[in-house]
C-alpha cells in the first residue's frame, strides 16, 4: 500500500444510543484512508481510532463482506449502498471517493426497520414476511429423479433472477414510501415461476402481501428507485407479476389471506 495517495475524509455519521434515543449526525475526520480499502474497512479503521480515543465505536451491520449475504446496509451520501450500481456497501471501494470528500452515512430508514444502534437496523420484518409464505412444503426423503419435473429454460432463468435477492432492504431504504414490494415480489416470483411453487402459490402471495401491509411498509408508486438501487438488479417486472398473481388469487382462488 503506497502512502502517497491516502485520503482524508470528513464523515457525517448517524449516532444513536439505542432504539429509544432520538439520535443525531456526528462529524468525524478520518485520515489515512487507502483507496484500496472497502467502505466497511474504512469504518473499521474509524472504529479502531475511536476505540483508541476511548469513544464508543460506530455499530454497523455486516457479515460476509463479499456481496452475497445481504447483511450490510447503509445510506451513503443519500443512496442505499452508496453511489455505485449493483454493488453492496461491502463491495464498494474507497477509490470511488476523493480526498477531502464529505461522506454522509445513515442507517436504512423505515417504520418497519427500527434503528437498534447507530447504523444497525432490525430488518426482522423481512423474516416475518418470509415466514408468512415465502417457502414451499416438500416431501423429504430420496432425492427426486433429475428432470422428472420439466421447467422451461426461460422460466428457470427468471426464477433465478428473482432468487438473486439477498434481502438487504435497499429497496425499502431507497423507496420514498418505504415500500417492500420489490423484496416481496422477488420472494413470491422465485417460487411462483416454478412448478414446485404452484401448489401454494395463491395462498403464498396473499399471505405475504398481508404480512407486508401489517408490518407498516408503504405502498408502491411505481417509481423504480428500488430496482435502480438494488445491488442484485432485481427488476420491477417482479412487482407486476405479484400484482397480477394477487389479483388472480383474489378473484379465483379458494385460498384467502390470513386475517
Amino acid at each position: 500500500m503506497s502512502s502517497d495517495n491516502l485520503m482524508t475524509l470528513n464523515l457525517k455519521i448517524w449516532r444513536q444510543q439505542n432504539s429509544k434515543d432520538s439520535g443525531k449526525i456526528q462529524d468525524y475526520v478520518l485520515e489515512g484512508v487507502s483507496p484500496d480499502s472497502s467502505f466497511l474497512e474504512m469504518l473499521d479503521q474509524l472504529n479502531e481510532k475511536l476505540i483508541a480515543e476511548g469513544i464508543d465505536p460506530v455499530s454497523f451491520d455486516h457479515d460476509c463482506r463479499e456481496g452475497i449475504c445481504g447483511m450490510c446496509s447503509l445510506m451513503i451520501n443519500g443512496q442505499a449502498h452508496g453511489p455505485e450500481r449493483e454493488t453492496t456497501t461491502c463491495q464498494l471501494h474507497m477509490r470511488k471517493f476523493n480526498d477531502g470528500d464529505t461522506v454522509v452515512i445513515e442507517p436504512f430508514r423505515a417504520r418497519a426497520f427500527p434503528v437498534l444502534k447507530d447504523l444497525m437496523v432490525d430488518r426482522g420484518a423481512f423474516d416475518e414476511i418470509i415466514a408468512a409464505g415465502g417457502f414451499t412444503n416438500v416431501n423429504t426423503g430420496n432425492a427426486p429423479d433429475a428432470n422428472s419435473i420439466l421447467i422451461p429454460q426461460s422460466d428457470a432463468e427468471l426464477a433465478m433472477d428473482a432468487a438473486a435477492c439477498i434481502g438487504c432492504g435497499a429497496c425499502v431504504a431507497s423507496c420514498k414510501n418505504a415500500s417492500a414490494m420489490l423484496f416481496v415480489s422477488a420472494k413470491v416470483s422465485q417460487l411462483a415461476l416454478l412448478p414446485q411453487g404452484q401448489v401454494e402459490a395463491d395462498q403464498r402471495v396473499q399471505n405475504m402481501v398481508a404480512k407486508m401491509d401489517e408490518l407498516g411498509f408503504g405502498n408502491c408508486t411505481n417509481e423504480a428507485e428500488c430496482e435502480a438501487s438494488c445491488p442484485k438488479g432485481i427488476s420491477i417486472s417482479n412487482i407486476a407479476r405479484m400484482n397480477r398473481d394477487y389479483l388472480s388469487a383474489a378473484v379465483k382462488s379458494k385460498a384467502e389471506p390470513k386475517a
Partner: protein
Amino acid sequence: MASKLCTYLKASVVKKQVMAVTGLLLCGFLVSHLIGNCLIYVGSDAFNTYAHALTSNKLIYVAEAILAAIFFTHIGLAIKLTVENKKARPVQYYMKQKTGRGATFASSTMPYTGMLILVFLIIHLINFKFGPVYMTQIDGIEVRDLHKTVVLYFQSPLNVLWYVIAMIALGIHVSHGFWSAFQSLGFSHPKYNCGLKLISKLFAVVIALGYIALPIYCYLLGGK
C-alpha cells in the same frame, strides 16, 4: 362475504389496483371530453347543440353520478395511500439522493399534480357548468349558449394561463399514471413494456396539447 371483500380492499396491492382502474377510466373521460371540446372548432351552433343534447338527456345524471364516484374514489384513495406512505418513514433521512435511474419528475410529483388537477376541476365547474348562463336560438329551440360562456372566459389572458398550467400538470400526471396503472394491474412483459411507456407519454402529450389548444383558439377568436 362482505368482510372478505373488505380484507381485499384494504390490501395495498388492491388499493393501487383500484387507483389504476379509476385512473384509466378518468383517462377515458379525458378523451371523450376532448372530442366534445373539438366541436368548438366546427362552430358555436355545433358546440351548443352538443352541449344541449348532453344536458337535456336524463341519463346525464346517471353518467355524472358515475363520474363523480370515480373521481371521489380516485381522490380518496390518493389521500389514503399518500398518508400511509408518509407514515411508513417517520424519521426522514439527513441526506437523500435519487439514483437518477428510477424516479422521474412526473412520478415523484403525483400527489401535487393530482392536487392541482382537483383545484382546477372545482374552478372549472364553477366557471363553466355553474358559470354565467347566456341563451341562444338554434332552429327555433332555446338553448344555453355555452360557446359564449367559454369564449368570454378565455378573453382574459390570466384565465388562459391558468388553464394552460393546469393542463400541463394533467399531462405530467397522466404521463406517469397511464403506464403506472398497467404496472399496478400486472401488465408487464418485455414484448410491450417499452411500447407502453411510449404510449403513456404520447397520450399525455396529446391530452395536454389537445386541451391547451382550446383556450388559445378562443382567445384568438376574440369576443365574437
